[in-house]
Each structure stands twice: as structure tokens, then as C-alpha cells.
């Protein structure tokens, strides 16, 4: 896991730099929540929501691959923006618990205005 995480950080940063330019990925992590969700998240600097729109398919493919590499099924992939701005600060791939399938990923609208949904498995 240690090797995969370190490698995934480098790979994500490299791929995003190829697509967009100067992107910094200070941290990636695998998390488990009290509700039952597990996920893979990357903190980012330099990415904006326009970039995410343009490269959505590619970002989904990268996130899917990297989250699978650490054992997380990428059921729901999303970007989180800095509230009230277009700066994307986190990319997350999440394997959802039953409640979050309905509550967080179950609306037609994005669950919150700071969340940009990139992929939702129906």
C-alpha cells in the first residue's frame, strides 16, 4: 500500500501536469468513514473547474485507475472546489455506503454547490 500510494501521488501529479500545466499534489490518502464509505482522495493546487470540465474523461480514467490501485472501487468521483470559487482543491473517488448512495450521490443535482460530480455509477 505504501508504495502504491506514493506512486499514485506521483502519477496523478504527472498526468495532471501533462494535461493542464503547473499542478501540485501535496497529498493523497485512502480514507474510511464512520458511515461505511471508503475512498481515495488527492489534495491539489493549481487546478480549476474549467480544467476539470475539459479533461473530465481523462481525469475520471486516472482517478479510477489510481483508486483501484489502492483497493477502492471508484463508484463516485468528484472534485471539491474552494467554496465560492472555481479553484479545485480535492479530487475524490469513493466507494459509497448505502446512506451516501442515496443522500450524497442520489440527487440529480450535485449534492452541494462546491462539489462537481465527475462520475456516478448508476
Amino acid at each position: 500500500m505504501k508504495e502504491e500510494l506514493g506512486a499514485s501521488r506521483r502519477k496523478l501529479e504527472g498526468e495532471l501536469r501533462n494535461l493542464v500545466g503547473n499542478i501540485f499534489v501535496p497529498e493523497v490518502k485512502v480514507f474510511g468513514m464512520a458511515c461505511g464509505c471508503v475512498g481515495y482522495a488527492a489534495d491539489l493546487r493549481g487546478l480549476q473547474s474549467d480544467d476539470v470540465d475539459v479533461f473530465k474523461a481523462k481525469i475520471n480514467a486516472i482517478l479510477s485507475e489510481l483508486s483501484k490501485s489502492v483497493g477502492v472501487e471508484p463508484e463516485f468521483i468528484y472534485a471539491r472546489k474552494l467554496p465560492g470559487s472555481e479553484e479545485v482543491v480535492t479530487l475524490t473517488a469513493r466507494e459509497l455506503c448505502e446512506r451516501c448512495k442515496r443522500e450524497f450521490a442520489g440527487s440529480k443535482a450535485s449534492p452541494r454547490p462546491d462539489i462537481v460530480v465527475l462520475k456516478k455509477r448508476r
Partner: protein
Amino acid sequence: MQLMIPHPGHFPALKEIIEVKEAEGLNEVGEVFMGGSPEVMGSGRGVLHAPLIDEIKAQTEYAHQHGIKMHIVMNSTCTGAHHLTFEGYKMFKWYFNELNKADVDGVIVAEPYLVELLREFPMKTIVSVLSYVESPQRAKFFEELGADVLTVDTNINRHFDVLKAIVKAVNCEVKLIVNEGCLYRCPFRYSHYNLASHLSSLNQPRFPLFAPDFYYDKCINIRLRDPTQITKSGWIRPEDLKEYEAIGINTFKLSGRTKAVNWIIDCMRSYSHRSFKGNLLELLDCPQLLRDMFYMDNDKFDGAIEHWKKCRKVCGECGYCNELTKEALTIIK
């Protein structure tokens, strides 16, 4: 009864809230509220969306087409006295004018100066819960400043004698927030909202903060060590709304504009139906985090309102909430 529903701010969320209201005939839902521009002012909650006037206008028009009123929250508790500068005064006046031109129905404010400033506009002046209206005296003060609606301090949600006195003292509408789970008589309340007001505006505190969530973390820790504090908060069960209607309060507000759309919709359903089965913490805006730690069986709170209606809130002598918590609360394994 009329319900005011939180709106996270993005247009698709408003459409979904209204779609459910209409499909399920939730006729009690009459109003929504969302944050305004953080460039003009912060608010008591984090701002997740910064709508421009054109967007507010479009959303208001949509809400109106569906018979829903639109209110904008500008309830910062501290502007750093910006409103008392000529530049600030002109900006607030300009923004209120723009909201008015966008056909917004009401503005939710906490700052008394802005309550007065809003007199110049036909929009409703809705005094925020963050004006801490907790007595007939204070209610009267705000009414005289120009309030059309008073959202009273949730600390008195279970002080029926005070609520009755407020209803009697003023002519304006009295509104209660039903699903805020803040600590009863919280020592952090003023400090926390001042901090949130700064963090959600351009009027930022000095950086770096070593603990931007200091008060929230303290508040969660207090409840973990003493879960009775959750019982003692001023939340109102959907089943108990009728007790408030009986004393002349008919409009209720749901808290939760920073939460997921489907969570908001679930709460809207429960309060519209006046009924909920399950973990009460599922309904509370704050402390939502604890719903995965504690299970509070809503059924076990049947009839508790009868005690709270006459309770003197001298907890050391009473112990009712302690006993009730032992009976109703379990730790989720």
C-alpha cells in the same frame, strides 16, 4: 403551518427541492433561503456558492413561478464595522437595491443597522436567529427597528412562557428554527458565529489560524463526553410542531444550507409530514457528525415536550433530560 427550506445555492438543487415538493404535494413548503454574495458580506454558515445578481434573479423567478418565496441570507454577526463606513454603507445599499430589482422577497440579517437600512426597500426584513432574540424586550426592539419577521434564538425553543410573551409583544411574524442542534446556552455561540462570519466573507481574520474549527471541535467533544447535551438542545421534533402552533407560531425554518440536497429533501419531507421514524440525529443540521456515533430513537421522545413546556431549565435540580437520554440514546457499534 409554513416551512422555510434551506437551499444550498446551485440552481439544480432548487429545481430538485421544488420538484419533490410538487410531486409529493408538500404544500407547507412556501419559502427557500440561500446565501448571498460573500463579496458583500459573510454569513453564519460557510458559503459554498457565490451567486451573482443575475443568478439570484433567475432563481427567484423560477421559485416565483412555482409559488415559492426566495430569501437571501446576509446574517454576518460581524462586518468589522464596514457597514459604518461610507463605502460599506453605499455597498450594502447598492446590494439591497440589486436584490430588490431581482425580485427577492426577503433579506435575512443579524446586524441591527442593516435591519434599519432595509426599511427603505419593499423586501421583507427577516431578523436572523443570530440577532439572538430571546425576550419580548429584544423582540420589540427589533420590531421597532423594522423587522417583519423575527427568527428567535433557538435557546428559547423550549421556553414556552417566553415564546408566548414574544408572540404577544409583537405584531410581526415569529419564526422558529426546528432542526438546529446547537448546545443549549452554548458558551461558544457568539464567538463561533463571529468567526464563521469572518471566514465566510472577504473580511478575513488574521492568518494562519491554528484551529479554524476550534469552536466546532469543542462543541462535538462536549457532546461526546456528555450526550445529555444533545437532548437539551433546542431542536423540535416534527411531531411536536403542533405545540408551537397552539401558542400562535405557524412558520418554521429548517437549518442546513451547507448540507447535501437529498438530506435537505429528507428533512423537508419529515417536517412536512410532521412525522419521523429513526435516529433523531439524522434530522439535525448540527451536530450531523454524531449521527454515526449515537442513535437517538425519535419514538422515545414522544411526550417529552410536555415536560419541556413547563421545565424551569435548572438541570441540576431536574435531571429529566439525563434520564431520557439514558433511555433513548444508544452508542452505534
